[in-house]
């Protein structure tokens, strides 16, 4: 399994289960509120997901995502309002285009496209937020660690 590669250095210890690092960028108006909704409804989802709040999904520079991968994130998920529902009218359309472009280059850069996901989650979709996060963590766990960049990153 790919996941076991992380622990090969220490052969004496039992391999710790792979816990992926996941960064979720959530827009303030829909998805972050959706995450709050998941909390309010006590919908459980894995602790691996760490949320960064941004005003709009279009605030997320693709370079932030690459930075996260470079620093060793195993998966990045970007959540915005549903198309047509953007608080700033057109923000998520920019996101959609920019991320389509990034997606097309991700493999070339050595990151499996499956490690990046874009989802539209509205403020009322707390349960869906939890489901998406759970499925994304499962997907990344199955993919294993983001070995390529993790080996290269400038951090012990």
């Amino acid at each position, binding site marked *: 399994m790919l996941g076991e590669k992380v622990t090969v250095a220490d052969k004496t210890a039992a391999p710790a289960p792979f816990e992926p*690092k996941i*960064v979720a960028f959530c827009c*303030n*108006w*829909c998805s*972050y*509120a959706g*995450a*709050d909704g*998941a*909390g*309010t409804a*006590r*919908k*459980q*989802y894995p*602790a691996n997901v*760490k*949320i*960064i*709040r*941004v*005003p*709009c999904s*279009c*605030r*997320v*520079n*693709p370079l*932030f995502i690459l*930075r*996260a991968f470079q*620093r*060793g*994130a195993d998966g990045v998920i970007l959540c915005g*309002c549903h198309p*047509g*529902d*953007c*608080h*700033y*009218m*057109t*923000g998520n359309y*920019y996101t959609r285009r*920019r991320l389509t472009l990034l997606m097309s280059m991700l493999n070339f850069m050595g990151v499996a496209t499956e490690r990046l996901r874009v989802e539209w989650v*509205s*403020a*009322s*979709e707390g349960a869906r937020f*939890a489901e998406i996060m759970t499925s994304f963590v499962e997907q990344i766990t199955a993919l294993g660690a983001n070995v390529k960049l993790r080996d290269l990153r400038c951090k012990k």
Partner: protein
Amino acid sequence: MQKIGVFVCWCGSNIATTVDVAQVVAAVKTIPNVAFAADYKYMCSEGGQELIHKAVQDYQLDRIVVCSCSPRMHEATFRNCAEQVGINPYLVEIANIREQCSWIIKDRAQATAKAIQLAKAAIAKVRFNTPLTPGESKVVKRALVIGGGIAGIQAALDIAEAGYKVDIVERQPAIGGRMAQLDKTFPTLDCSACILTPKMMDAANHPNIKLYTYSEVEAVSGFVGNFEVKIRQKARSVDAKRCTGCGICTEKCPSRKTSSEFELGLKTRGAIYIPFSQALPKVPVIDREHCLKFQTGKCGICSKVCPAECIDYTQQDEIITEHYGAIVAATGFDLLPLDKFGEYGYQDSPDVITSLEFERLTNATGPTEGHLVCPSTGKEPKSVIIVSCVGSRDTSGRGKTYCSKICCMYNAKQAMYIREKYPQIDVTVFYIDVRTPGKAFDEFYRRAVEEFNVHYIKGQVGKVLKDARGGLTVFASDLLSDKHLMLHADMVILATAVKPAAGARKLATMLTASMDNDDFFTEAHPKLRPVESPTAGIFLAGMCQGPKDIPETVSQAGAAAVKVVGLLAKDKLRTNPCVAHCQENICSGCLACEKVCPYGAITAETKTVINLAGVKEQRTVAVVNQTLCQGCGACTVACPAAAMDLKGFSNQEILAEVDALC
């Protein structure tokens, strides 16, 4: 050196049960620049805020991180708290360890570890925060109410009474909405028109209220305090100023085959019509699709008979542009279409009707002048069956999962008025539950059962069929006696689910207001801010926010009006300082930012700047209008030089969070 204070909230037991707050405090204390860390039972309480104040003074803190509930809940509280003790409110960051830790993770070790990481990310971000000062924007002292039903009328009246100008936009030719269609209202059984018409009159005659009927909102731009709204006033083909409302044109119109919208298709109307007798404004409108003059060029009778000479076939739609400080959405409801509910036979028999159609059938101004008759025969029914929850509380996917809330009460009301006027008619109500919370509501329902002898049967109706004798056969179950029933009825009334009015989603998109999965407008907080949309300056009244009865609608409309008045009473608003700004010395003037800005907040200006080589030069740079900018950040990503950045969510700040989390 920066001195950061970290305050970890227990939120009573909400956080402390699953997150080891002491461990979070111990962990953050080791981080450079953290000069103070403490935990407290309720950080948002007075005691908690005093703790923050005292720590700031004792340790000369200059930045604050609060690990607590969602920033959408208490960011403002802690920013105010910081401001009181002399710290710029934008030097406060919140780590959301309730909604994102304790409430979604059961494992204490995992939740604590995540809480520590979120705290670290917030600390990493706050290091780069800069003091920000909100700007000011003007407030246009005029409100817009969208929808002229009881919710809109009440909201407009309350705003107008407080001394502010208010416009009502109603897409129908007259105001009044659904309430105008009702016969009587629960729990008092007073006539709906008798209590609504005076309010309609007040609204139509109020010096501060302007009505735009037969009009729709076409476009909305701007923001709280100054929305620019385009209203399409559809052509009535009648000069409203000259028309006296005599109605001769509507009587003489030869085209009589159009079904009346107001009468829900139970009656026809002319191509030129006034929707109902108490309509306000009492000005007819020509339905061009069915008008012989418009369709064939011949006719023109209305024009010939009009004594005021106000028929104008050349009238065009008019676009009115107006500015408003606040907007109230009061767009009301429709009934769920019954095409997916074939088992009730609504499509097969005219004697199967919706509750709203029943209201018209018993209304003295309705198609039968209030005589209850079966639409198929014109004869009085001998037995009536009422079916509750048609499309409500439906998890099959055909209907709505929510309870429509008003049906149990109007079922009792309708059963009562049948039994009161026609004691010989037998009335049976099939129900899943009878839900009658509310003042004098349960007493009302009991009166239906005990005084009016309405039969209530717990169970669902499975099928309604036309039978050979001309009536209806109803197959149902009686859950309490565990029996299958086959009953005869002459009329079946379906208590049909309510849903937000058609077009509500389109409007929400224009207002950038959010909606839930059922297309009801979302409130800013379900308990504490129930009449406000999360979008500043947009307020909610009535059914568009969720199912509710008339008393609740009126209360909500009043509450929305108070919020509007509170907003309009201010001369200036503090604007969000988290806006874009351009670092002019590295801006190349390519203006990629200008093209993506949805607010037109970015313009090109020729300026003298000192370039990176330290040389003074004159060139074009992008300049952000701080009042127009709403802070989405689209421009920051478009900028190839990273000259454009967003205050409060800067590249540095977000990258610091990324680094802290990975």
